[in-house]
């Protein structure tokens, strides 16, 4: 009897696992709950409770007062978060939208812990940045507002130090100035992996580093998925800022990550996109053809049920 039931049970388990596997692989999305885990006020209250930070031996060039002031700004004005002029930090900046909007308190706690202990855990990742990165944080210069954001520098450098993709293969160790080089760059698969590992998200990614996503009408697809929450786009930035000085066209590859906040059509059949990058929202009108041409990756996400 018991053996008989065991046999049935094992068959049942195999069936359930098989069905779940098929369900997870199918495009049906998990139910989402986008209610923030914590509020900006909670983050500010936590940062105020610290009053003052001591200098950290782990981050010798980071001023603790400025660091704390940066964290306050992140909590109160998350959309002003800035990746710096000419750096390859756009992917890290785009994904920072998630913690700053859904769990600012958790992010503040993580940053404080990283500053004080030189290591900290976020999601499934334990960050323990190497010495070259820790020495560089706080002294990256000529990058606009990133110059006065040591907290931003710590976050970007820690992410780039920890996560590696094929683009980082030939430049894995940090050297001075590597914020502008392949050391800091991010390919599409790496970006999606970071989202999954850091924020416990269910990530729905379409596209690649070379081939555009097969989504039928790009506008309709974006309009469908961008209704509930912003969507990450992997773009060819050179085409977005169109410039026709030379007749020769360059090989079109995506190099820039942005967060698409809204998309809608206007009467003249133009498409208006509102996206977030470089610490600001941008509104721009593009033709349906250009929209299809510039987008190489689309990443939508939903929250896993706990």
């Amino acid at each position, binding site marked *: 009897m018991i053996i008989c039931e065991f046999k049935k049970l094992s068959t049942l388990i195999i069936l359930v696992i098989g069905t779940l596997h098929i369900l997870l692989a199918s495009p049906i999305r998990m139910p989402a709950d986008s209610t923030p885990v914590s509020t900006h006020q909670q983050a500010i209250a936590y940062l105020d409770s610290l009053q003052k930070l001591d200098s950290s031996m782990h981050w010798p060039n980071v001023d603790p007062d*400025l660091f704390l002031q940066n964290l306050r700004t992140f909590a109160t004005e998350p*959309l002003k978060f800035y990746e710096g*002029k*000419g750096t390859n930090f756009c992917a890290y900046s785009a994904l920072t939208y998630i913690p700053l909007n859904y769990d600012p308190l958790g992010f503040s706690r993580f940053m404080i812990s990283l500053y004080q202990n030189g290591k900290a855990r976020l999601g499934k990742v334990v960050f323990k940045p190497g010495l070259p990165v820790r020495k560089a944080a706080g002294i990256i*210069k*000529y990058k*606009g*507002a990133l*110059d*006065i954001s040591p907290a931003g520098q710590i976050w970007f450098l820690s992410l780039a130090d920890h996560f590696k993709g094929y683009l980082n293969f030939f430049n894995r160790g940090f050297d001075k100035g590597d914020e*502008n080089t392949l050391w800091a760059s991010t390919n599409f698969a790496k970006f999606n992996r970071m989202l999954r590992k850091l924020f416990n998200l269910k990530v729905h990614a379409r596209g690649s580093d070379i081939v555009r996503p097969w989504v039928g009408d790009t506008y309709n697809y974006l309009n469908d998925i961008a209704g509930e929450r912003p969507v990450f786009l992997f773009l060819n930035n050179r085409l977005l*800022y*169109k*410039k*026709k*000085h*030379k007749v020769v066209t360059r090989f079109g590859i995506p190099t820039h990550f942005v967060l698409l906040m809204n998309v809608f059509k206007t009467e003249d059949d133009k498409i208006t996109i*509102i996206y977030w990058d470089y610490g*600001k*929202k*941008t*509104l*721009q*009108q593009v033709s349906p053809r250009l929209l299809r041409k510039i987008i190489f990756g689309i990443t939508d996400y939903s929250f896993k049920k706990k």
Partner: protein
Amino acid sequence: MNRHIYYTAFFISWILMASCSHSKKFAKNYYNENEKTLLSIRDRFKILFDKNPFSLELIDKEVSRISMEIHTDSIKYIYTFRTDEPFLYDTLQKYQFNLKAMGELIKDMQKARCTWITNLDYYEKLEKKYLVFISVRDKNLNGFLRSEKYFTLAFFDRPQPFDEKERLLDREDLKKNRLINDGIFRRISDSVCYALTSKYR
């Protein structure tokens, strides 16, 4: 055989030296010829920018299409126009720009072959400052098999430190070159410097 190698090396280094001196010569000549226009563009841009922060780009070779970035506190609007279409002036009016001053600025930019003008922010002792950044595209800098190059100019509000090779220095650390858009800039005057770069913005 050795003689051939020697001649080839000599020829290549001569071409390299000639192209470097050509670029330097171009920078000096261009600035001298257009100094008045450039300074006037800078001054008018600053006045217009103070009222409505914006950046302006001439997109095509014929400098007849412009792209305009209008910055508000919360959002940046990017528009593209042909200079002869009415939407341009409708939009400028909507944002309460001085139409006459904007028209003159665009004309002068076309005349001086300016591709891009913006106000770049930079920081000194945690204090935010601005410099006017202008890029120029000239056919003398570009040619067959040559990569695209721009003559970029930075206009500071006050005199800047330079080293003995006339390279712009960091005011906070006089041993370091101060980079703008990751480029080393060279002196034209105490508060104006230039670089030849592959990026125009």
